[in-house]
């Protein structure tokens, strides 16, 4: 019997921007090896929830625990330690524009993992090859396409071999083929690295293709209204969720 605490446990999380309530009373757990989808309509607070999970924004109330360790109530060292277990793929890629792709991936390796530059350079080349960008080491982010930026950013997110990966709208701005390719890459990552993956998306194809657990945030009631396997939710979830997952057709 496995009694280890879940990889991520969120309890009674309430998020606000100043006075404005974004979402309240969110409680859910993400288990080892899950591909957990955070879904919901535009502007419901999906990305804000992600920012709370990766330590960029402090909750108004509630807890976020990683393997039992509190992200926000602990000291800075605990938070940094948790953040270093996580890799984040931002919506816009967020590659550092003054560095080449290879330098982007090397920076966390040399600065955090204290690797020698020569080793980091080799590792960076391998990470780029994993996402299909071998040979692009010395390109600057402004010199490659949007889809390539996303993949390069994924390579950077994997720089420190994180055991939890966060994706913010991975398929936003990608054509269907690149988007499907990214989905395959996500599945591949889980299979090969055993990573736990949290994805914010409203792309239905992705939701069904990769998600095995999910959370639906509702913009009107400002809380979660369903959770579980998206395929099950599409058949037997609440009306709003069923409509969302079936593009309005029931």
């Amino acid at each position: 019997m496995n009694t280890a605490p879940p990889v991520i446990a969120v309890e009674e999380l309430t998020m606000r921007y100043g006075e404005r309530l974004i979402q309240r009373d969110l409680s859910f757990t993400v288990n080892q090896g899950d591909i957990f989808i955070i879904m919901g309509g535009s502007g419901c607070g999906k990305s804000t929830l992600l920012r709370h999970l990766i330590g960029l924004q402090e909750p108004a109330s509630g807890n976020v625990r990683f393997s039992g360790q509190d992200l926000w109530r602990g000291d800075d060292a605990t938070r940094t330690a948790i953040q270093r277990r996580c890799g984040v793929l931002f919506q816009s890629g967020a590659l550092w524009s003054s560095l080449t792709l290879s330098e982007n991936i090397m920076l966390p390796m040399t600065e955090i993992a204290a690797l020698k530059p020569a080793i980091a350079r080799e590792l960076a080349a391998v990470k780029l090859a994993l996402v299909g960008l071998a040979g692009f080491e010395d390109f600057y982010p402004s010199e490659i396409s949007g889809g390539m930026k996303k993949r390069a950013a994924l390579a950077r997110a994997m720089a420190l071999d994180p055991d939890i990966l966060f994706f913010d709208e991975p398929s936003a701005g990608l054509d269907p083929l690149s988007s499907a390719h990214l989905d395959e890459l996500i599945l591949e990552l889980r299979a090969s690295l055993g990573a736990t993956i949290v994805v914010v998306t409203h792309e239905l194809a992705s939701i069904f293709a990769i998600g095995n657990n999910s959370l639906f945030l509702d913009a009107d009631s400002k809380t979660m209204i369903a959770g579980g396997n998206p395929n099950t939710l599409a058949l037997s979830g609440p009306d709003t969720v069923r409509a969302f997952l079936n593009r309005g057709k029931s």
Partner: protein
Amino acid sequence: MTDRPASAECQVDASVAICRLAGDWRTSQVLPVMDQTKIGGCTALSFDCHELGEWDSSLLVFVLQMTKTAEQNNCRLDTAGLPAGLVRLLQLARAVPAKAQTDEVLHEDGVLEYVGNVTLATWWRIPQNLAFIGDLTQSLGRFVTGKARYQRANLLLFIEDAGPRALPIVSLISFLVGTILAYMGAAQLTLLGAQIYIADLVGIGMVREIAALMTGIILAGRTGAAYAAQLGTMQVNEEIDAFRTFGLPVSDFLVLPRFLALLVMAPLLTLYAGIVGVAAGMLIATTVFDVGAFAYFNQTVKALTLTHFAVGMIKGTVYGALVALAGCLCGMRCGRSAQAVGDATTAAVVLGILLITIAASLLTMVFQRLGI
């Protein structure tokens, strides 16, 4: 095809209003205005469009207004006479009822609200600003003990950009300011036949005060603005968030090299500006006011002590540090839009110049008191 003017008439027949629409309806033309009160007493409204030619959204606006009036007067609407496309557009436009405003949304504030909002925003920013300065102080501490994590190549790039690349504009402005000082001094001093003292005036004035001030203002407009725009854009692109999620100290990586670059280059630029200003003064004094070049040089050397150079360079260093602080602070607290980057850049320049002016008067007073 001939353009027929648009027209609309309303005929009331036994409490049924028939609206005849004719001609070509285009937004670019003058559109008919109809007295909508006629619909008031009617029980039904229908349309006759046999004479209607081409139409665009101007017709939709017109018909929508009529349907609203009709609804307010409980008048039944018959859209059968309208073109099929227009009926579909009407249905689309009316499919979702207008959002009922529960909270009143005010986009234009009164003067008092504006002042209140600005005051509150400034108040809320105080802890943020203190945290920024605290972070930077920690970074500087780590730098001194050799533990700061930044990229040396980056520091060199910032130094190159802040220093050597600013030389042309610093040269031009200090040369012109030196010229102005020489002319201003000469206007009074020639009355006494004391043109030789132009050397003292230009020398001490430039080296001690004006070189630093001009350099500070040039740096605020050139480098401070660039820092705010760079950091602001990084904020928009989530690049700064990326640093945070890796647990990398943003202040070490992004703020420290910029701050150090200005701290190193500002006094050097000040020194350079002072020398260029003195040379400009000499050029004017010798060519326009008949002062011998050698005499001018001697007089300048006599007037300028190392203290003057030291005071000028201390001021330059302080101004440089303030410009870096203003630029990085405004960049780091930038919002996530193009507009916000513009605001951050403006704020960086304004704050930079404001801080320079305050520091200039304080330092002048302090040096005066100390008798330096």
